[in-house]
């Protein structure tokens, strides 16, 4: 190795702290981009591959009973790829502790002969599915968390209160099923005989799973084919109650994961930008330290391109080290996260792949970005003449070019000195404040902060961006929380009891009221219906929700018009989800609804907004009016209960007591849902984004801290001689440390303020993007103090940590060391 390259190696290896910080900085970006990119690619690939291999249905039609003959006629409709009928029963799984879980049983003849929404063995290495005998059940693998082992007996409580025992024959992987943790409902499969034994029908189907022949992701095409099937079915005398088409051709979590991948991708590249700032900062200071060496090299024959090549190789060496560490690190975490995501979102992971495009992006981040960031600072130093490079005399020359500015600064900072005369007679507290905050070392720190303006600007940029991302992510958490609270405003009850059929309100309310802890009850009605277009050619599914006119358990977010009032008769409040399919609707319009095969006209009095996916769209009407319209005054389908105590344990205990009492009174309860459980199910869907973003926010904080540490180290190194002079004139260890620490804290506080300002537009963009990607609606911008407070604490800790080592090093320098020439 020639001495040129030995110098490069020495520059790389001799200052280990600088090298470590530089590599760590590049690793942060390379790791983040690698993880996000590869994870996104592999998730998309595996999610789709697993999903499509199950021949998924794009639409489900809930119908009046249909037999095999009818099914055969539907199979021939143009555009239908496969259609399969199923009959199901919903019951409750009674666990050993008495807790009940809603469980849906699909009747299937032979698990291996299903043609749509195929089942697979829960272990991807197995090739054969468990068979189903009478009184046996296969559980979807996402319900493994319930803790049942194969061979266990499952106690099932039917809606009529009867208990059935089923033997768990095995677990299956059903990629088209929404996981238990998210739905709060387990999916199970039994044979037709067992289904009949459970109260279902083995001869007729109650739902049709439809898979189109082509264009499965084309919503309009899927909708058209489904409508054709429904029309044919209804022509044959059947009734289609409801059609479910949700994100056809894709796994149920596709939209969420796309949103997550995009947002994380943006954050990853922001992190790369942070790293680039930091690389510039470090290179600027490195080149400043090396300017004399460069002058010498040029004096002994080194040409610009030769010297430039040396520094390019140095930068590439940092990149290579970062690349070598971050590629396997990102890959390892990729596997861990992917497996977690697969379990959580219910899809099978394929063979782990490191995608070439990921490695290319990582290489760009590790090699090209640092090089681009460093090329101008490097060139600016390399091209200086030998004379400029060698003309460094006396104490740090940072102030030489700033003579005018320093004079100005001195004027500004000399004010406290003038004030000191009056401070002599000031109260002790003021004198103490002055002593602490305006003492000379502090003033030196503040002055030092602004000496290297470009470096300060780069450090501040890094920290400000890190702070802004952190605060924005915290604000996004706050927004999620607020969104959940907004959604909860439509479901304010502590306990929601749903019945399998209508009950007289007085009867069920009387039972529920007798349970201690129940404070108040409301009886609600829910009905399926259709909105008919003005030209009466099309109809859209919807659900009517009918709270009592004086309900206190709903606080809607109105975007237009008003809410329902007592005495309103045919008034209806429509929501954003109906508007997405009927954008022509507005307040004051009269709409035609088909409720239980009876058409009626309603007047739109208001429009509400609810975030998230709601299928079918919900419209609100007065209970009093609609219950008369459907000839069921006084009947309710659900009870919304407020408890006197709000802690989850008490509410859960009340829920259990209610369950027992209603069972005893033989009331057919389909589900008892606790607000806390419901909230948990909802937040499960956003948790993945929250955790990922938290990781990214922490990474940005780390990079920001590295930036500050790098700056403080460089500043201290540059001021070695000044420190020597200060020590020579009596500065103690504490004085020297204080100067460095206060400078670090001052930069930290400046960046904190800047970060808060910048976080506003970033929060706005993040909230909008995430809202559209995940909730299908822009979320409401929230700016919380939590993020600001936490970032302040992190900034102060980072500033102290980043300055402590340079401060300690500075205080250990002796006068002899610091004033010695090279």
């Amino acid at each position, binding site marked *: 190795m020639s001495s040129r390259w030995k110098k490069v190696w020495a520059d790389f290896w001799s200052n280990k702290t600088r090298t470590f910080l530089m590599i760590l900085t590049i690793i942060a970006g390379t790791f983040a981009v690698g993880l996000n990119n590869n994870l996104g690619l592999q998730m998309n690939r595996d999610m789709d591959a697993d999903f499509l291999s199950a021949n998924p249905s794009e639409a489900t039609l809930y119908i009046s009973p249909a037999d095999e003959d009818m099914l055969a006629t539907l199979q021939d409709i143009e555009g239908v790829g496969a259609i399969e009928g199923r009959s199901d029963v919903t019951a409750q799984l009674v666990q050993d502790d008495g807790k009940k879980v809603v469980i849906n049983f699909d009747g299937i003849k032979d698990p291996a002969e299903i043609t749509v929404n195929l089942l697979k063995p829960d272990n991807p290495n197995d090739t054969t599915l468990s068979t189903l005998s009478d009184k046996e059940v296969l559980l979807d693998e996402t319900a493994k968390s319930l803790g049942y082992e194969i061979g266990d007996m499952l106690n099932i409580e039917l809606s009529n209160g009867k208990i059935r025992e089923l033997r768990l024959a095995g677990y299956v992987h059903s990629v088209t099923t929404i996981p238990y943790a998210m739905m709060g409902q387990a999916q199970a499969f039994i044979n037709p005989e067992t289904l009949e034994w459970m109260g279902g029908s083995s001869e007729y189907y109650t739902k049709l799973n439809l898979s189109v022949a082509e264009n499965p992701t084309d919503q309009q095409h899927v909708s058209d084919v489904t409508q054709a099937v429904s029309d044919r079915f209804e022509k044959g005398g059947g009734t289609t109650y409801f059609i479910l088409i949700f994100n056809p051709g894709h796994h149920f979590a596709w939209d969420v994961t796309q949103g997550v991948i995009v947002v994380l991708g943006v954050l990853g590249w922001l992190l790369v930008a942070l790293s680039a700032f930091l690389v510039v900062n470090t290179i600027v200071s490195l080149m400043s330290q090396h300017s004399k060496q460069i002058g010498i090299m040029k*004096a002994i024959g080194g040409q610009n391109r030769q010297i430039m090549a040396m520094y390019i190789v140095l930068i590439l060496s940092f990149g290579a080290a970062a690349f070598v560490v971050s590629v396997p690190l990102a890959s390892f975490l990729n596997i861990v996260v992917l497996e977690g995501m697969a379990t959580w979102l219910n899809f099978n992971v394929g063979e782990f792949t490191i995608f070439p495009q990921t490695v290319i992006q990582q290489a760009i981040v590790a090699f090209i970005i640092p090089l681009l960031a460093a090329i101008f600072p490097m060139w600016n130093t390399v091209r200086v003449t030998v004379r400029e490079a060698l003309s460094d005399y006396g104490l740090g020359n940072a102030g030489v070019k700033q003579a005018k500015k320093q004079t100005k600064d001195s004027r500004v900072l000399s004010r406290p000195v003038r004030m000191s005369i009056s401070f002599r007679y000031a109260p002790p507290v003021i004198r103490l404040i002055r002593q602490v905050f305006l003492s000379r070392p502090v003033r030196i720190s503040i002055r030092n902060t602004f000496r290297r303006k470009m470096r300060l600007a780069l450090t501040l940029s890094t920290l400000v961006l890190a702070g802004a991302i952190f605060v924005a992510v915290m604000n996004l958490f706050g927004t999620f929380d607020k969104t959940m609270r907004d959604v909860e405003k439509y479901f304010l009850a502590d306990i929601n009891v749903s019945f399998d059929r209508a009950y007289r309100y007085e009867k069920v309310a009387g039972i529920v009221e007798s349970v201690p802890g129940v404070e108040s009850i409301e009886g609600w009605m829910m009905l399926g219906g259709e909105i008919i277009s003005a030209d009466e050619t099309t109809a859209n599914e919807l659900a009517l929700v009918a709270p009592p006119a004086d309900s206190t358990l709903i606080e809607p977010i109105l975007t237009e018009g008003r809410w329902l009032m007592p005495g309103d008769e045919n008034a209806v409040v429509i929501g954003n989800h109906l508007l997405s399919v009927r954008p022509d609707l507005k307040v004051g319009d009269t709409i035609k609804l088909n409720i239980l095969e009876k058409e009626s006209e309603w007047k739109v009095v208001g429009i509400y907004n609810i975030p998230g996916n709601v299928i079918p769209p919900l419209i609100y009407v007065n209970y009093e009016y609609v219950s008369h319209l459907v000839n069921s005054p006084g009947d309710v389908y659900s009870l919304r209960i407020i408890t006197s105590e709000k802690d989850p344990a008490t509410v859960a205990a009340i829920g259990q007591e209610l369950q027992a009492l209603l069972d005893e009174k033989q009331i057919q309860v389909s589900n008892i849902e606790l607000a806390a459980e419901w909230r948990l199910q909802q937040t499960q869907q956003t948790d993945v984004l929250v955790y990922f973003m938290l990781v990214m926010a922490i990474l940005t904080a780390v990079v920001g801290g590295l930036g500050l540490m790098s700056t403080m180290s460089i500043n201290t190194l540059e001021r070695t001689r000044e420190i020597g002079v200060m020590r020579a004139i009596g500065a103690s260890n504490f004085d020297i440390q204080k100067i460095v620490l206060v400078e670090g804290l001052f930069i930290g506080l400046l960046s904190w303020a800047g970060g808060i300002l910048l976080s506003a537009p970033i929060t706005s963009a993040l909230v909008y993007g995430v809202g559209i990607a995940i909730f299908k609606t822009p979320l409401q911008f929230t700016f919380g103090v939590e993020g600001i407070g936490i970032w302040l604490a992190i900034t102060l800790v980072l500033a102290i940590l980043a300055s402590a080592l340079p401060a300690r090093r500075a205080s250990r320098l002796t006068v002899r060391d610091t004033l010695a020439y090279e």
Partner: protein
Amino acid sequence: MGAGLETIMLTLPFTKNGKKPAESNGYPLISLRGVDKLYKTAVGDFPALVNVDLDIKAGEFVSVIGKSGSGKTTLLNMVTGIDRPSAGEVWVNETAVHELGENKMARWRGINLGIVFQFFQLLPMLSVIENIMLPMDFCKTFPKNERKERALELLDQMELADHAFKLPTALSGGQQQRVAIARGLANDPPVIIADEPTGNLDSKTAERVFELFNNLVSQGKTIIIVTHDNEMAKRASRVALIADGEIVSDKPNGKPPSQPSPLGGRSNFSPLGGEMSDRAEGGA
């Protein structure tokens, strides 16, 4: 400092391609014609050099003396191309230095000039031998496999072979300056330029550095040094006095310039080393 070190006998190890040093043919090796240098400062233009004419023949050992701020270093910077004249011409070894671009200048400088600085300016992260090999690496004046051998021989001539693999910080000031001289000789340049080479050394060590320079002159090198030390300056064959940017006096030092001799192996060594030793002892 051991007694042996006081007599440094310098014989240049070998030259590139057997090239001879520039010979005195009556034409100056270094020529400055009407050189002006103006520095722009906050308080107005400062004339560092005013209409300087200077000719130096091959094999001359010229001392440039003058007070601080008189323009000595600026004059050297004109010769080395480290700085450019505001007006006038600078010719070194038949090259118009004032016309060279920065990049060509670096290569030209590396091959034609050996520069020795007051504070040695060795690269601290490279070992002594690597510092000496660096100019050869940059200028590729010697084949790769010969560079180490040449560096070692130069160090041997400086009686520093034992320190070859140490870092510069492990050496004394005098030793570092000798390494710097060895580095200056690495590409076998015809001209050695030294700015206050003894300014940071004690008198004994400074004496020995001068012995080295004398020895180099005897080997045919042309040397220009800037110094504050009038006594040291008198060891040169010619002394130029500069004041306020003008050469006010330029005369031989009562001793004719050394006649260049072809560089070669030790067999070509002239017994000047002994003389130097005597002078050094006398000087002490």
